[in-house]
């Protein structure tokens, strides 16, 4: 007992063998740093650009316009009876949050290498801060969505779509997407630290991933024999759920939900393990 009181701030440094999970207590001790990093992310982003936070409004709108031109006008992919602007914008909400968070977490080791080589803090704080700071663009994008929703709904051509009460559950979807992007980002961060190839691979894979996810098309249009592929994509459920909640135009099922959540958790746990493993000697291999 005497031992425990004395060792309250005792740190033992030795080679770790095997697997180690999250140093929760340490991450908690550095919570102030976590918030400051979130804040630094946001502040530095708007200080460095002329449009500042306005970028978060402009970007999804431009993407939506491009999608409308290509997928609606040229490819003529139906949007489940919902105005295409709303359909694409709704799909981009979870997808953009996922993609941006994935990109910043997967860079968290290599782009902070210089800092990691000089001072210790739980490395996990870095990717965690990106998961949180990317919530701001998501929120701005959501507001943009509501504005356009209102304009479309009460404009001349109203449709049969409706935001349901289930929209209140949207935060849960955001949490799942956040966890998924953290998990995949940790995997790539660890692998990129070891092999630079993964840095290139990941941005390419992200593009392909978007087309495999029902962002620009409704899940109902996926041919039955390819359905299993769509279902095994953990991003499918969040997309469909978001469309249902905000537009009543998705088709999430319990099976989709279970698969998605199971894969998300598996990726997170694996990601944390491999990240923690690589992080220990990461500075030796920069």
């Amino acid at each position, binding site marked *: 007992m005497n031992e425990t009181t004395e*060792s309250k701030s005792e740190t033992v*440094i030795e080679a770790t063998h095997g697997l180690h999970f999250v140093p929760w207590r340490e991450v908690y001790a*550095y919570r102030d740093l976590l918030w400051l990093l979130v804040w*630094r992310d946001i502040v530095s982003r708007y200080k460095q650009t002329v449009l500042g936070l306005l970028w978060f409004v402009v970007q999804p709108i431009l993407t939506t316009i491009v999608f409308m031109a290509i997928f609606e006008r040229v490819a003529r992919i139906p949007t489940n009876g919902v105005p295409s602007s709303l359909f694409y914008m709704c799909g981009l909400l979870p997808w953009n949050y996922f993609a941006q968070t994935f990109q910043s977490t997967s860079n968290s080791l290599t782009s902070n290498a210089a800092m990691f080589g000089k*001072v210790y803090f739980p490395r996990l704080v870095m990717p965690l801060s990106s998961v949180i700071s990317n919530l701001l663009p998501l929120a701005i994008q959501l507001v943009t969505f509501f504005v356009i929703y209102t304009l479309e709904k009460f404009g001349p051509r109203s449709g049969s779509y409706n935001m349901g009460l289930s929209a209140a559950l949207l935060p849960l979807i955001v949490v799942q997407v956040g966890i998924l992007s953290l998990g995949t980002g940790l995997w790539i961060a660890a692998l990129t630290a070891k092999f*630079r190839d993964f840095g290139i691979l990941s941005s390419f894979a992200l593009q392909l991933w978007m087309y495999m996810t029902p962002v620009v098309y409704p899940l109902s249009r996926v041919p039955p024999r390819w359905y299993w592929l769509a279902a095994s994509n953990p991003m499918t459920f969040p997309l469909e759920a978001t469309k249902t909640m905000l537009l009543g135009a998705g088709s999430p099922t319990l099976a989709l939900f279970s698969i998605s959540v199971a894969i998300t958790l598996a990726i997170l746990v694996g990601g944390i393990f491999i990240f923690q493993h690589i992080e220990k000697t990461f500075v030796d291999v920069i």
Partner: protein
Amino acid sequence: MGRPIIEVRNLSKQYRLGAIGATSLREEFHRYWDRLRGKPSPDEKEFWALRDVSFDVQPGEAIGVIGRNGAGKSTLLKILSRITEPTSGRAVMRGRVASLLEVGTGFHPELTGRENIFLNGAILGMTKAEVRRKFDEIVAFAEVEKFIDTPVKHYSSGMYVRLAFAVAAHLEPEILIVDEVLSVGDIQFQKKSLGKMRHVAADEGRTVLFVSHNMAAVRQLCSSALLLKNGRLHLAASAAEAIESYVESSDQTGSSEGFQFRNKHPDLQLLKADVEKASIVYNDSLTVRTLWQVRRPMQFAIECVIRDHLMAPLAFHGTGVIAGYEFVFPAGIAEVVIHYPRLPLAQGHYSMDIIAARSGREFFVYAEGAVSFQVDLAIPMQAGYWFSQGNGSVYLPCEVSAEAPRTRVGLGRPTP
């Protein structure tokens, strides 16, 4: 004596040379393929940066860590500050640790001084409340009151460094790990930071682990010191004793045997460095002949630093940054001759670092103490004054005038 605050047991760290650095999958595949065919990979060499190092530090002690480049000092500090893991062995730190391996870590140029203080403080392990409590003190110490709400990208480099050090200096750890930070800033500020560190060690009773090449600073600040040699703990003794042993061990006058150098470039190696006459007198010339192996054509400058007996740098010359030229070497063995026409140095022992570098950008080779030499006789003055290192090692011509008559004096050699 109670329980030691730092307990290090058989700490070792192994690096695999050649395998250092992130690789591409292609390289990894090649290596794997070579191994499959039983061909030993040519560039993979294991080397121990730290080997079986054990020591204890008592609370309140200030310990210097000395040794040449490559002796393992930085590796030791990196392990103790948890930046990297040891390969084997164990260290126990009983108290909050803060390390200042380099000041200004995590400063963001777009953020103001105020914002950076909070961010940097948090990175170094302070809570927001702690930073807030120390804020005024930090700002005053750094002397940046007027610019505290200006983005640090508009700061002069002096202000930047002062602010960074100020944050770090106001941490309240039980164990403070410091690496060479004293070489930053102007003289005034260096004095101030040295004072702050002494205050931290002596008056606040904190434990300090201090790595430096500046023997004078180590002697001033530390009660005892660890001398590392080739990754092993060579000597743990009082600071004075350790410094003496360190200086003596680099006392192989004139020879190029056993010098440590840091080769950072795979295609360039310093093979040999010899001083033509290892024992000179005041104002003699000095010629150093060096042989380099250049594996592929490359361009670089040759720089040299003369150090005194305490390893403090005295004189610097660089073909790139000083004289404005670099050499373009073809592949092969190259001889480089460094010639000082006159060295107005005091009697005593000196060493010279020889460096190959891209001017102002990076070091390819840093051979610390590549050669050393002795100045035996130094009587530069009219008065016959015996010029020794104690009063300063270099003689610079100087004119002194006064509205008063002059009279001649003569002095012999002062009795020591």
